[in-house]
Protein backbone atom coordinates (compact mmCIF):
# COMPACT_ATOMS: atom_id res chain seq x y z
CA UNK A 1 0.00 0.00 0.00
CA UNK A 2 2.90 2.36 0.66
CA UNK A 3 3.87 2.22 -2.97
CA UNK A 4 0.66 3.74 -4.31
CA UNK A 5 1.46 7.34 -3.42
CA UNK A 6 4.52 8.29 -5.41
CA UNK A 7 4.58 11.88 -4.09
CA UNK A 8 4.73 10.71 -0.48
CA UNK A 9 7.09 7.83 -0.98
CA UNK A 10 9.53 9.95 -2.92
CA UNK A 11 9.73 12.78 -0.38
CA UNK A 12 9.10 11.46 3.10
CA UNK A 13 10.30 7.89 2.64
CA UNK A 14 13.29 8.51 0.50
CA UNK A 15 15.57 5.82 1.81
CA UNK A 16 13.17 2.83 1.59
CA UNK A 17 12.15 4.01 -1.90
CA UNK A 18 15.65 4.14 -3.26
CA UNK A 19 16.50 0.89 -1.54
CA UNK A 20 13.56 -0.65 -3.36
CA UNK A 21 14.91 0.77 -6.61
CA UNK A 22 18.23 -0.93 -5.99
CA UNK A 23 16.47 -4.24 -5.40
CA UNK A 24 14.38 -3.81 -8.54
CA UNK A 25 17.46 -3.07 -10.63
CA UNK A 26 19.08 -6.20 -9.21
CA UNK A 27 16.14 -8.14 -10.61
CA UNK A 28 16.56 -6.38 -13.93
CA UNK A 29 20.34 -6.68 -14.04
CA UNK A 30 20.76 -9.91 -16.07
CA UNK A 31 18.37 -8.75 -18.76
CA UNK A 32 19.62 -5.16 -18.70
CA UNK A 33 23.23 -6.28 -19.10
CA UNK A 34 22.49 -8.47 -22.11
CA UNK A 35 20.22 -5.79 -23.56
CA UNK A 36 22.96 -3.16 -23.30
CA UNK A 37 25.62 -5.47 -24.68
CA UNK A 38 23.72 -7.01 -27.59
CA UNK A 39 21.01 -4.51 -28.54
CA UNK A 40 21.59 -0.96 -27.29
CA UNK A 41 25.34 -0.67 -27.79
CA UNK A 42 25.32 -2.55 -31.14
CA UNK A 43 22.60 -0.28 -32.53
CA UNK A 44 24.48 2.89 -31.62
CA UNK A 45 27.81 1.37 -32.66
CA UNK A 46 26.36 0.31 -36.02
CA UNK A 47 25.50 3.93 -36.72
CA UNK A 48 29.05 4.88 -35.75
CA UNK A 49 30.59 2.13 -37.89
CA UNK A 50 28.52 3.22 -40.87
CA UNK A 51 30.33 6.58 -40.82
CA UNK A 52 33.82 5.02 -40.94
CA UNK A 53 35.91 2.91 -43.29
CA UNK A 54 36.19 0.12 -40.70
CA UNK A 55 37.35 -3.19 -42.13
CA UNK A 56 37.47 -6.62 -40.56
CA UNK A 57 41.25 -6.43 -40.52
CA UNK A 58 41.11 -3.20 -38.46
CA UNK A 59 39.54 -4.83 -35.38
CA UNK A 60 42.93 -5.09 -33.66
CA UNK A 61 43.97 -1.55 -34.67
CA UNK A 62 41.03 0.76 -33.94
CA UNK A 63 43.17 3.88 -34.37
CA UNK A 64 43.76 3.14 -38.04
CA UNK A 65 40.06 3.63 -38.76
CA UNK A 66 39.07 6.87 -40.48
CA UNK A 67 35.87 8.81 -40.04
CA UNK A 68 34.44 9.15 -43.53
CA UNK A 69 31.05 10.75 -42.82
CA UNK A 70 28.36 9.88 -45.31
CA UNK A 71 30.74 8.42 -47.86
CA UNK A 72 29.52 4.84 -47.33
CA UNK A 73 25.93 5.91 -47.97
CA UNK A 74 26.95 7.73 -51.16
CA UNK A 75 28.83 4.64 -52.28
CA UNK A 76 25.80 2.46 -51.61
CA UNK A 77 23.46 4.46 -53.77
CA UNK A 78 26.00 4.67 -56.58
CA UNK A 79 26.43 0.91 -56.42
CA UNK A 80 24.24 -0.79 -59.02
CA UNK A 81 24.33 -3.98 -56.98
CA UNK A 82 22.83 -2.26 -53.93
CA UNK A 83 20.16 -0.47 -55.96
CA UNK A 84 19.25 -3.78 -57.58
CA UNK A 85 19.06 -5.42 -54.14
CA UNK A 86 16.70 -2.71 -52.89
CA UNK A 87 14.50 -3.40 -55.91
CA UNK A 88 14.67 -7.16 -55.25
CA UNK A 89 13.70 -6.61 -51.63
CA UNK A 90 10.80 -4.39 -52.75
CA UNK A 91 9.60 -7.13 -55.08
CA UNK A 92 9.76 -9.54 -52.16
CA UNK A 93 7.64 -7.21 -50.00
CA UNK A 94 5.25 -6.28 -52.82
CA UNK A 95 4.41 -9.91 -53.61
CA UNK A 96 5.11 -11.57 -50.28
CA UNK A 97 2.97 -9.38 -48.05
CA UNK A 98 -0.32 -9.48 -50.02
CA UNK A 99 0.03 -13.20 -50.81
CA UNK A 100 0.79 -14.11 -47.21
CA UNK A 101 -2.02 -11.92 -45.90
CA UNK A 102 -4.51 -13.10 -48.50
CA UNK A 103 -3.93 -16.80 -47.82
CA UNK A 104 -3.84 -16.23 -44.07
CA UNK A 105 -7.06 -14.22 -44.14
CA UNK A 106 -8.92 -16.68 -46.37
CA UNK A 107 -7.96 -19.60 -44.14
CA UNK A 108 -8.88 -17.66 -40.98
CA UNK A 109 -12.30 -16.86 -42.48
CA UNK A 110 -12.82 -20.50 -43.41
CA UNK A 111 -11.78 -21.77 -39.99
CA UNK A 112 -13.92 -19.16 -38.26
CA UNK A 113 -17.12 -19.98 -40.15
CA UNK A 114 -18.30 -22.90 -38.10
CA UNK A 115 -15.63 -25.52 -38.68
CA UNK A 116 -16.04 -27.42 -35.45
CA UNK A 117 -14.75 -30.81 -36.43
CA UNK A 118 -11.06 -30.93 -37.35
CA UNK A 119 -10.69 -27.18 -36.72
CA UNK A 120 -7.76 -27.73 -34.37
CA UNK A 121 -6.11 -30.13 -36.81
CA UNK A 122 -6.35 -27.70 -39.72
CA UNK A 123 -4.98 -24.90 -37.56
CA UNK A 124 -2.01 -27.05 -36.55
CA UNK A 125 -1.28 -28.10 -40.12
CA UNK A 126 -1.34 -24.50 -41.37
CA UNK A 127 0.81 -23.32 -38.49
CA UNK A 128 3.41 -26.11 -38.72
CA UNK A 129 5.56 -24.32 -41.36
CA UNK A 130 6.03 -21.40 -38.94
CA UNK A 131 7.84 -23.53 -36.38
CA UNK A 132 9.80 -25.62 -38.87
CA UNK A 133 13.51 -25.13 -39.34
CA UNK A 134 14.22 -23.00 -42.39
CA UNK A 135 17.46 -24.77 -43.33
CA UNK A 136 15.68 -28.10 -43.43
CA UNK A 137 12.81 -26.70 -45.47
CA UNK A 138 15.13 -24.94 -47.90
CA UNK A 139 16.86 -28.28 -48.58
CA UNK A 140 13.51 -29.85 -49.36
CA UNK A 141 12.68 -26.91 -51.61
CA UNK A 142 15.96 -27.35 -53.51
CA UNK A 143 15.24 -31.03 -53.87
CA UNK A 144 11.73 -30.37 -55.15
CA UNK A 145 12.63 -27.56 -57.58
CA UNK A 146 15.71 -29.26 -58.99
CA UNK A 147 15.77 -29.87 -62.76
CA UNK A 148 14.96 -33.54 -62.04
CA UNK A 149 12.99 -32.73 -58.91
CA UNK A 150 9.53 -33.58 -57.77
CA UNK A 151 7.89 -30.43 -59.14
CA UNK A 152 9.14 -31.12 -62.65
CA UNK A 153 8.12 -34.74 -62.24
CA UNK A 154 4.56 -33.51 -61.68
CA UNK A 155 4.80 -31.15 -64.65
CA UNK A 156 6.17 -34.02 -66.75
CA UNK A 157 3.09 -35.99 -65.78
CA UNK A 158 0.92 -33.51 -67.64
CA UNK A 159 3.35 -33.28 -70.53
CA UNK A 160 5.25 -30.13 -69.58
CA UNK A 161 9.03 -29.88 -69.52
CA UNK A 162 9.91 -28.10 -66.30
CA UNK A 163 12.89 -25.73 -66.16
CA UNK A 164 15.73 -25.71 -63.66
CA UNK A 165 13.84 -23.27 -61.46
CA UNK A 166 16.56 -21.96 -59.17
CA UNK A 167 19.07 -21.49 -61.99
CA UNK A 168 16.70 -19.33 -64.00
CA UNK A 169 17.00 -15.56 -63.58
CA UNK A 170 13.26 -15.05 -63.89
CA UNK A 171 11.97 -18.09 -62.06
CA UNK A 172 14.24 -18.12 -59.00
CA UNK A 173 12.57 -15.14 -57.32
CA UNK A 174 9.03 -16.57 -57.49
CA UNK A 175 10.28 -19.80 -55.90
CA UNK A 176 12.09 -17.88 -53.14
CA UNK A 177 8.96 -15.79 -52.48
CA UNK A 178 6.85 -18.95 -52.44
CA UNK A 179 9.04 -20.34 -49.66
CA UNK A 180 8.60 -17.11 -47.68
CA UNK A 181 4.83 -17.21 -48.13
CA UNK A 182 4.64 -20.90 -47.18
CA UNK A 183 6.64 -20.18 -44.05
CA UNK A 184 4.60 -17.16 -42.89
CA UNK A 185 0.95 -17.52 -43.84
CA UNK A 186 0.32 -19.50 -40.64
CA UNK A 187 1.27 -16.50 -38.51
CA UNK A 188 -1.06 -14.26 -40.51
CA UNK A 189 -3.83 -16.85 -40.18
CA UNK A 190 -3.52 -17.11 -36.41
CA UNK A 191 -3.52 -13.34 -35.95
CA UNK A 192 -6.55 -12.95 -38.23
CA UNK A 193 -8.34 -15.75 -36.35
CA UNK A 194 -7.77 -13.98 -33.06
CA UNK A 195 -9.08 -10.77 -34.61
CA UNK A 196 -12.16 -12.46 -36.08
CA UNK A 197 -13.02 -14.10 -32.80
CA UNK A 198 -12.91 -10.74 -31.05
CA UNK A 199 -15.80 -9.45 -33.21
CA UNK A 200 -19.05 -9.87 -31.26
CA UNK A 201 -21.50 -12.32 -32.89
CA UNK A 202 -24.58 -10.17 -32.28
CA UNK A 203 -23.30 -7.59 -34.76
CA UNK A 204 -23.66 -10.23 -37.48
CA UNK A 205 -27.05 -11.33 -36.20
CA UNK A 206 -28.32 -7.77 -36.27
CA UNK A 207 -26.99 -7.35 -39.81
CA UNK A 208 -28.62 -10.61 -40.91
CA UNK A 209 -31.94 -9.41 -39.44
CA UNK A 210 -31.59 -6.31 -41.60
CA UNK A 211 -31.14 -8.57 -44.59
CA UNK A 212 -27.40 -8.21 -45.14
CA UNK A 213 -25.95 -11.19 -47.00
CA UNK A 214 -22.58 -12.80 -46.34
CA UNK A 215 -20.74 -10.63 -48.80
CA UNK A 216 -22.12 -7.39 -47.33
CA UNK A 217 -21.40 -8.60 -43.81
CA UNK A 218 -17.81 -9.27 -44.82
CA UNK A 219 -17.46 -5.88 -46.50
CA UNK A 220 -19.28 -3.73 -43.95
CA UNK A 221 -18.64 -5.50 -40.66
CA UNK A 222 -15.71 -7.92 -40.78
CA UNK A 223 -13.25 -5.87 -42.81
CA UNK A 224 -13.72 -2.54 -40.95
CA UNK A 225 -13.69 -4.16 -37.51
CA UNK A 226 -10.63 -6.18 -38.46
CA UNK A 227 -8.66 -3.09 -39.48
CA UNK A 228 -6.38 -3.05 -36.39
CA UNK A 229 -5.44 -6.69 -37.01
CA UNK A 230 -4.88 -6.04 -40.71
CA UNK A 231 -2.60 -3.16 -39.81
CA UNK A 232 -0.67 -5.28 -37.36
CA UNK A 233 -0.24 -8.19 -39.77
CA UNK A 234 0.82 -5.99 -42.68
CA UNK A 235 3.39 -4.13 -40.59
CA UNK A 236 4.75 -7.36 -39.10
CA UNK A 237 5.07 -9.00 -42.51
CA UNK A 238 6.53 -5.93 -44.25
CA UNK A 239 9.14 -5.54 -41.54
CA UNK A 240 9.90 -9.24 -41.79
CA UNK A 241 10.17 -9.36 -45.59
CA UNK A 242 12.25 -6.16 -45.69
CA UNK A 243 14.90 -8.08 -43.74
CA UNK A 244 14.53 -11.27 -45.73
CA UNK A 245 17.75 -13.29 -45.50
CA UNK A 246 17.25 -17.01 -44.85
CA UNK A 247 15.21 -17.87 -47.95
CA UNK A 248 17.42 -16.28 -50.63
CA UNK A 249 20.65 -17.21 -48.81
CA UNK A 250 19.74 -20.86 -48.54
CA UNK A 251 18.00 -21.38 -51.88
CA UNK A 252 20.18 -19.37 -54.24
CA UNK A 253 22.70 -17.32 -52.21
CA UNK A 254 21.33 -14.32 -54.09
CA UNK A 255 21.78 -15.83 -57.53
CA UNK A 256 21.42 -16.50 -60.38
CA UNK A 257 23.21 -13.28 -61.38
CA UNK A 258 22.03 -11.49 -58.25
CA UNK A 259 18.38 -11.81 -59.22
CA UNK A 260 17.36 -12.85 -55.69
CA UNK A 261 19.91 -10.90 -53.62
CA UNK A 262 18.17 -8.94 -50.84
CA UNK A 263 19.49 -5.96 -48.88
CA UNK A 264 20.12 -8.24 -45.89
CA UNK A 265 22.13 -10.55 -48.13
CA UNK A 266 24.11 -7.56 -49.42
CA UNK A 267 24.81 -6.60 -45.80
CA UNK A 268 26.00 -10.13 -45.13
CA UNK A 269 28.13 -10.35 -48.25
CA UNK A 270 29.87 -7.01 -47.49
CA UNK A 271 30.41 -8.19 -43.91
CA UNK A 272 31.91 -11.41 -45.25
CA UNK A 273 34.20 -9.35 -47.50
CA UNK A 274 35.44 -7.49 -44.40
CA UNK A 275 33.74 -4.20 -45.37
CA UNK A 276 32.29 -3.56 -41.90
CA UNK A 277 31.67 0.18 -42.47
CA UNK A 278 29.82 -0.33 -45.72
CA UNK A 279 27.92 -3.29 -44.31
CA UNK A 280 26.77 -1.20 -41.32
CA UNK A 281 25.61 1.57 -43.65
CA UNK A 282 23.57 -0.96 -45.63
CA UNK A 283 22.07 -2.26 -42.41
CA UNK A 284 21.04 1.26 -41.46
CA UNK A 285 19.30 1.65 -44.79
CA UNK A 286 17.31 -1.45 -43.78
CA UNK A 287 16.49 0.12 -40.42
CA UNK A 288 15.37 3.30 -42.19
CA UNK A 289 13.17 1.32 -44.61
CA UNK A 290 11.64 -0.68 -41.75
CA UNK A 291 10.84 2.50 -39.84
CA UNK A 292 9.49 4.27 -42.93
CA UNK A 293 7.20 1.40 -43.96
CA UNK A 294 5.83 1.04 -40.44
CA UNK A 295 5.07 4.76 -40.17
CA UNK A 296 3.39 4.97 -43.59
CA UNK A 297 1.22 1.95 -42.86
CA UNK A 298 0.20 3.25 -39.44
CA UNK A 299 -0.80 6.49 -41.18
CA UNK A 300 -2.80 4.79 -43.93
CA UNK A 301 -4.50 2.10 -41.95
CA UNK A 302 -5.09 3.76 -38.60
CA UNK A 303 -8.81 3.45 -37.80
CA UNK A 304 -10.45 6.84 -38.08
CA UNK A 305 -11.57 8.02 -34.67
Amino acid at each position, binding site marked *: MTTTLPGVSRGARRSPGSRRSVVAWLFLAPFALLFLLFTAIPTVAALGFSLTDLRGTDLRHPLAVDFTGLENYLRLFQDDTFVRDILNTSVFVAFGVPLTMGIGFALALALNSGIRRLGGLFRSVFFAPVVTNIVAVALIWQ*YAFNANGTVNKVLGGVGLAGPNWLDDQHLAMPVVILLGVWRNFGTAMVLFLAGLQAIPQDVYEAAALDGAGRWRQLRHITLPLLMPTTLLVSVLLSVFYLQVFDEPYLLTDGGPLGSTESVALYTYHQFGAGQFGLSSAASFVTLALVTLVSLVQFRLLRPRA
Partner: protein
Amino acid sequence: MTALTAPRSAEVTSADRTAVRRGSVSRPLLYAALVLCALLTMLPFLWVISGSLRGLDEIRADPGAWLPLHVTLDNFVRLFRTEGFARFLTNSVVVAALVVAGNVVAASAAGYALAKLDFAGRRIAFAAVMAAMMVPSTTVFVTQFVITVDLGLADTLTGIALPGMALPLSVFIMRQYALSVPDELLEAARIDGAGEFRIFFRIFLPLAGPAVATITIMSFLVSWNNFIWPLIVAQSTSSYTLPVGLAATSQAAAHVTDYGLMLAGAIVVMLPVLVLFLFLQRYFVQGIAGTGMR
Protein backbone atom coordinates in the same frame (compact mmCIF):
# COMPACT_ATOMS: atom_id res chain seq x y z
CA MET B 1 -19.08 -16.29 -51.49
CA THR B 2 -22.31 -14.60 -52.56
CA ALA B 3 -23.22 -17.56 -54.68
CA LEU B 4 -23.01 -19.84 -51.69
CA THR B 5 -25.38 -17.83 -49.54
CA ALA B 6 -28.82 -19.26 -48.98
CA PRO B 7 -31.66 -16.94 -49.96
CA ARG B 8 -32.88 -15.26 -46.82
CA SER B 9 -36.46 -14.33 -46.15
CA ALA B 10 -37.40 -11.23 -44.20
CA GLU B 11 -38.59 -13.45 -41.41
CA VAL B 12 -35.59 -14.84 -39.60
CA THR B 13 -36.06 -18.01 -37.61
CA SER B 14 -33.65 -19.23 -34.98
CA ALA B 15 -32.52 -21.93 -37.39
CA ASP B 16 -31.56 -19.20 -39.82
CA ARG B 17 -29.57 -17.52 -37.12
CA THR B 18 -27.44 -20.54 -36.47
CA ALA B 19 -27.03 -20.84 -40.21
CA VAL B 20 -25.67 -17.31 -40.22
CA ARG B 21 -23.28 -18.12 -37.44
CA ARG B 22 -22.07 -21.38 -38.86
CA GLY B 23 -22.34 -20.69 -42.57
CA SER B 24 -23.69 -24.22 -42.90
CA VAL B 25 -24.60 -23.88 -46.56
CA SER B 26 -21.05 -23.77 -47.86
CA ARG B 27 -19.70 -26.36 -45.47
CA PRO B 28 -18.88 -29.27 -47.82
CA LEU B 29 -17.08 -26.90 -50.18
CA LEU B 30 -15.32 -25.30 -47.25
CA TYR B 31 -14.02 -28.66 -46.03
CA ALA B 32 -12.91 -29.63 -49.53
CA ALA B 33 -10.98 -26.38 -49.91
CA LEU B 34 -9.40 -26.73 -46.47
CA VAL B 35 -8.32 -30.31 -47.12
CA LEU B 36 -6.73 -29.23 -50.40
CA CYS B 37 -4.88 -26.37 -48.70
CA ALA B 38 -3.75 -28.67 -45.90
CA LEU B 39 -2.34 -31.17 -48.41
CA LEU B 40 -0.47 -28.41 -50.25
CA THR B 41 0.93 -27.15 -46.95
CA MET B 42 2.05 -30.63 -45.97
CA LEU B 43 3.68 -31.43 -49.33
CA PRO B 44 7.22 -30.41 -48.29
CA PHE B 45 6.94 -32.58 -45.17
CA LEU B 46 5.71 -35.52 -47.22
CA TRP B 47 8.53 -35.02 -49.73
CA VAL B 48 11.16 -35.01 -47.03
CA ILE B 49 9.83 -38.15 -45.35
CA SER B 50 9.49 -40.08 -48.58
CA GLY B 51 12.84 -38.82 -49.91
CA SER B 52 14.76 -39.69 -46.77
CA LEU B 53 13.51 -43.27 -46.88
CA ARG B 54 14.82 -43.89 -50.40
CA GLY B 55 18.19 -45.50 -51.03
CA LEU B 56 21.02 -43.55 -52.66
CA ASP B 57 20.86 -45.52 -55.93
CA GLU B 58 17.17 -44.99 -56.14
CA ILE B 59 17.49 -41.23 -55.67
CA ARG B 60 20.21 -41.02 -58.31
CA ALA B 61 18.16 -43.04 -60.76
CA ASP B 62 15.04 -40.89 -60.36
CA PRO B 63 15.46 -37.88 -58.05
CA GLY B 64 11.90 -36.64 -58.41
CA ALA B 65 10.00 -39.82 -57.64
CA TRP B 66 7.15 -39.55 -55.13
CA LEU B 67 7.52 -42.74 -53.18
CA PRO B 68 10.40 -45.06 -52.26
CA LEU B 69 10.44 -48.40 -54.06
CA HIS B 70 12.26 -49.94 -51.12
CA VAL B 71 11.99 -48.26 -47.74
CA THR B 72 15.41 -47.99 -46.12
CA LEU B 73 16.93 -46.22 -43.14
CA ASP B 74 20.31 -46.23 -44.85
CA ASN B 75 20.39 -42.42 -45.13
CA PHE B 76 19.99 -42.02 -41.36
CA VAL B 77 22.68 -44.59 -40.66
CA ARG B 78 25.08 -42.78 -43.00
CA LEU B 79 24.08 -39.43 -41.48
CA PHE B 80 25.02 -40.46 -37.95
CA ARG B 81 28.31 -41.85 -39.26
CA THR B 82 29.07 -38.60 -41.07
CA GLU B 83 31.95 -36.73 -39.54
CA GLY B 84 30.82 -33.80 -37.43
CA PHE B 85 27.13 -34.63 -37.38
CA ALA B 86 27.07 -35.80 -33.74
CA ARG B 87 29.04 -32.67 -32.88
CA PHE B 88 26.53 -30.36 -34.60
CA LEU B 89 23.69 -32.09 -32.78
CA THR B 90 25.42 -31.75 -29.39
CA ASN B 91 26.23 -28.09 -30.08
CA SER B 92 22.61 -27.34 -30.93
CA VAL B 93 21.45 -29.00 -27.72
CA VAL B 94 24.00 -27.15 -25.56
CA VAL B 95 23.19 -23.77 -27.14
CA ALA B 96 19.46 -24.35 -26.75
CA ALA B 97 19.94 -25.32 -23.08
CA LEU B 98 21.94 -22.14 -22.42
CA VAL B 99 19.37 -19.99 -24.20
CA VAL B 100 16.43 -21.53 -22.35
CA ALA B 101 18.16 -21.25 -18.97
CA GLY B 102 19.12 -17.65 -19.64
CA ASN B 103 15.62 -16.70 -20.69
CA VAL B 104 13.96 -18.35 -17.72
CA VAL B 105 16.29 -16.65 -15.23
CA ALA B 106 16.65 -13.21 -16.82
CA ALA B 107 13.11 -12.83 -18.10
CA SER B 108 11.29 -14.05 -15.00
CA ALA B 109 13.28 -11.67 -12.80
CA ALA B 110 12.95 -8.73 -15.20
CA GLY B 111 9.28 -9.37 -15.93
CA TYR B 112 8.51 -9.57 -12.22
CA ALA B 113 10.34 -6.31 -11.51
CA LEU B 114 8.61 -4.50 -14.38
CA ALA B 115 5.17 -5.61 -13.26
CA LYS B 116 5.40 -5.71 -9.48
CA LEU B 117 8.16 -3.45 -8.21
CA ASP B 118 7.95 0.31 -8.05
CA PHE B 119 11.28 1.90 -8.90
CA ALA B 120 12.96 4.82 -10.55
CA GLY B 121 13.29 4.24 -14.29
CA ARG B 122 10.55 1.65 -14.60
CA ARG B 123 8.89 3.32 -17.58
CA ILE B 124 12.20 3.72 -19.37
CA ALA B 125 13.11 0.09 -18.70
CA PHE B 126 9.80 -1.09 -20.15
CA ALA B 127 10.15 1.20 -23.17
CA ALA B 128 13.60 -0.30 -23.74
CA VAL B 129 12.13 -3.82 -23.75
CA MET B 130 9.54 -2.79 -26.33
CA ALA B 131 12.13 -1.00 -28.47
CA ALA B 132 14.43 -4.03 -28.36
CA MET B 133 11.70 -6.10 -30.01
CA MET B 134 11.73 -3.71 -32.98
CA VAL B 135 15.46 -3.58 -33.81
CA PRO B 136 16.13 -5.60 -36.98
CA SER B 137 18.71 -8.34 -36.46
CA THR B 138 20.37 -7.37 -39.73
CA THR B 139 21.09 -3.92 -38.29
CA VAL B 140 23.06 -5.18 -35.33
CA PHE B 141 24.80 -8.35 -36.40
CA VAL B 142 28.04 -6.68 -37.49
CA THR B 143 28.46 -4.84 -34.19
CA GLN B 144 27.24 -7.83 -32.19
CA PHE B 145 29.95 -9.82 -33.89
CA VAL B 146 32.63 -7.23 -33.05
CA ILE B 147 31.51 -7.23 -29.38
CA THR B 148 31.54 -11.03 -29.30
CA VAL B 149 35.08 -10.99 -30.71
CA ASP B 150 36.12 -8.41 -28.10
CA LEU B 151 34.72 -10.59 -25.33
CA GLY B 152 36.84 -13.45 -26.67
CA LEU B 153 33.70 -15.46 -27.38
CA ALA B 154 33.81 -15.72 -31.16
CA ASP B 155 33.57 -19.30 -32.36
CA THR B 156 32.35 -20.53 -28.94
CA LEU B 157 28.99 -21.99 -27.97
CA THR B 158 28.62 -19.29 -25.30
CA GLY B 159 29.09 -16.64 -27.99
CA ILE B 160 26.39 -18.28 -30.10
CA ALA B 161 23.98 -18.48 -27.16
CA LEU B 162 24.61 -15.16 -25.43
CA PRO B 163 22.59 -12.65 -27.53
CA GLY B 164 19.54 -14.93 -27.36
CA MET B 165 19.73 -15.56 -23.62
CA ALA B 166 17.40 -12.69 -22.74
CA LEU B 167 14.80 -12.24 -25.46
CA PRO B 168 12.68 -9.09 -25.02
CA LEU B 169 9.61 -11.13 -25.94
CA SER B 170 10.25 -13.43 -22.95
CA VAL B 171 10.40 -10.42 -20.64
CA PHE B 172 7.19 -9.10 -22.17
CA ILE B 173 5.37 -12.42 -21.71
CA MET B 174 6.57 -12.69 -18.10
CA ARG B 175 5.53 -9.11 -17.33
CA GLN B 176 2.05 -9.67 -18.74
CA TYR B 177 1.73 -12.78 -16.62
CA ALA B 178 3.04 -11.09 -13.47
CA LEU B 179 0.45 -8.34 -13.87
CA SER B 180 -2.24 -10.96 -13.34
CA VAL B 181 -0.82 -12.06 -9.99
CA PRO B 182 -2.72 -10.20 -7.21
CA ASP B 183 -0.74 -7.51 -5.39
CA GLU B 184 -2.38 -8.48 -2.06
CA LEU B 185 -0.50 -11.78 -2.09
CA LEU B 186 2.85 -10.02 -2.34
CA GLU B 187 1.86 -7.27 0.12
CA ALA B 188 0.87 -9.85 2.72
CA ALA B 189 4.29 -11.45 2.48
CA ARG B 190 5.96 -8.04 2.71
CA ILE B 191 4.03 -7.25 5.88
CA ASP B 192 5.19 -10.57 7.30
CA GLY B 193 8.70 -9.30 6.74
CA ALA B 194 9.71 -11.33 3.70
CA GLY B 195 12.41 -9.79 1.48
CA GLU B 196 11.85 -9.20 -2.23
CA PHE B 197 14.01 -12.14 -3.32
CA ARG B 198 12.20 -14.45 -0.94
CA ILE B 199 8.85 -13.26 -2.28
CA PHE B 200 10.04 -13.78 -5.83
CA PHE B 201 11.30 -17.32 -5.27
CA ARG B 202 8.72 -18.56 -2.76
CA ILE B 203 5.54 -16.88 -3.94
CA PHE B 204 5.83 -15.58 -7.49
CA LEU B 205 7.85 -18.32 -9.26
CA PRO B 206 5.71 -21.23 -8.06
CA LEU B 207 2.69 -19.38 -9.47
CA ALA B 208 4.40 -18.54 -12.76
CA GLY B 209 4.48 -22.10 -14.15
CA PRO B 210 2.49 -21.41 -17.33
CA ALA B 211 4.57 -18.32 -18.18
CA VAL B 212 7.83 -20.18 -17.54
CA ALA B 213 6.60 -23.00 -19.78
CA THR B 214 5.74 -20.56 -22.56
CA ILE B 215 9.16 -18.92 -22.33
CA THR B 216 10.91 -22.28 -22.30
CA ILE B 217 9.16 -23.50 -25.43
CA MET B 218 9.53 -20.23 -27.26
CA SER B 219 13.20 -19.69 -26.52
CA PHE B 220 14.01 -23.32 -27.34
CA LEU B 221 12.31 -22.85 -30.70
CA VAL B 222 14.15 -19.59 -31.41
CA SER B 223 17.49 -21.13 -30.50
CA TRP B 224 17.00 -24.42 -32.32
CA ASN B 225 15.89 -22.73 -35.53
CA ASN B 226 18.29 -19.77 -35.36
CA PHE B 227 20.42 -19.55 -38.47
CA ILE B 228 21.97 -16.18 -39.28
CA TRP B 229 23.72 -15.55 -35.93
CA PRO B 230 25.36 -18.98 -35.54
CA LEU B 231 26.34 -18.70 -39.22
CA ILE B 232 28.25 -15.51 -38.39
CA VAL B 233 29.78 -16.48 -35.05
CA ALA B 234 30.68 -20.12 -35.66
CA GLN B 235 33.82 -20.04 -37.75
CA SER B 236 35.17 -23.54 -37.40
CA THR B 237 33.13 -26.67 -37.95
CA SER B 238 33.66 -27.70 -34.32
CA SER B 239 31.24 -24.98 -33.17
CA TYR B 240 28.63 -25.33 -35.94
CA THR B 241 25.07 -25.85 -34.81
CA LEU B 242 22.87 -28.31 -36.67
CA PRO B 243 21.31 -25.82 -39.15
CA VAL B 244 24.69 -24.24 -39.96
CA GLY B 245 26.32 -27.65 -40.32
CA LEU B 246 23.52 -28.83 -42.55
CA ALA B 247 23.67 -25.73 -44.75
CA ALA B 248 27.46 -25.97 -45.01
CA THR B 249 27.34 -29.66 -45.87
CA SER B 250 24.70 -29.12 -48.53
CA GLN B 251 26.62 -26.22 -50.10
CA ALA B 252 29.91 -28.12 -50.06
CA ALA B 253 28.12 -31.07 -51.61
CA ALA B 254 26.32 -28.97 -54.22
CA HIS B 255 27.91 -30.94 -57.05
CA VAL B 256 27.76 -34.32 -55.40
CA THR B 257 24.15 -33.76 -54.29
CA ASP B 258 23.76 -36.54 -51.80
CA TYR B 259 20.11 -35.70 -51.33
CA GLY B 260 19.49 -38.78 -49.23
CA LEU B 261 21.90 -37.54 -46.59
CA MET B 262 20.51 -34.03 -46.71
CA LEU B 263 16.89 -35.08 -46.40
CA ALA B 264 17.74 -37.32 -43.45
CA GLY B 265 19.54 -34.34 -41.90
CA ALA B 266 16.52 -32.16 -42.55
CA ILE B 267 14.33 -34.65 -40.68
CA VAL B 268 16.66 -34.70 -37.68
CA VAL B 269 16.60 -30.89 -37.54
CA MET B 270 12.83 -30.67 -37.88
CA LEU B 271 11.81 -33.59 -35.69
CA PRO B 272 12.30 -32.18 -32.17
CA VAL B 273 10.35 -29.06 -33.06
CA LEU B 274 7.56 -30.92 -34.82
CA VAL B 275 7.15 -33.34 -31.92
CA LEU B 276 7.11 -30.46 -29.45
CA PHE B 277 4.64 -28.64 -31.66
CA LEU B 278 2.38 -31.67 -31.95
CA PHE B 279 1.94 -31.80 -28.19
CA LEU B 280 1.85 -28.10 -27.48
CA GLN B 281 0.36 -26.54 -30.62
CA ARG B 282 -2.45 -24.93 -28.64
CA TYR B 283 0.05 -22.89 -26.60
CA PHE B 284 2.12 -21.90 -29.63
CA VAL B 285 -0.91 -20.64 -31.45
CA GLN B 286 -2.34 -18.87 -28.42
CA GLY B 287 1.05 -17.36 -27.65
CA ILE B 288 1.33 -15.84 -31.12
CA ALA B 289 -2.26 -14.66 -31.12
CA GLY B 290 -1.98 -13.26 -27.59
CA THR B 291 1.17 -11.24 -28.15
CA GLY B 292 -0.23 -9.94 -31.39
CA MET B 293 -3.42 -8.63 -29.92
CA ARG B 294 -2.05 -6.71 -26.99
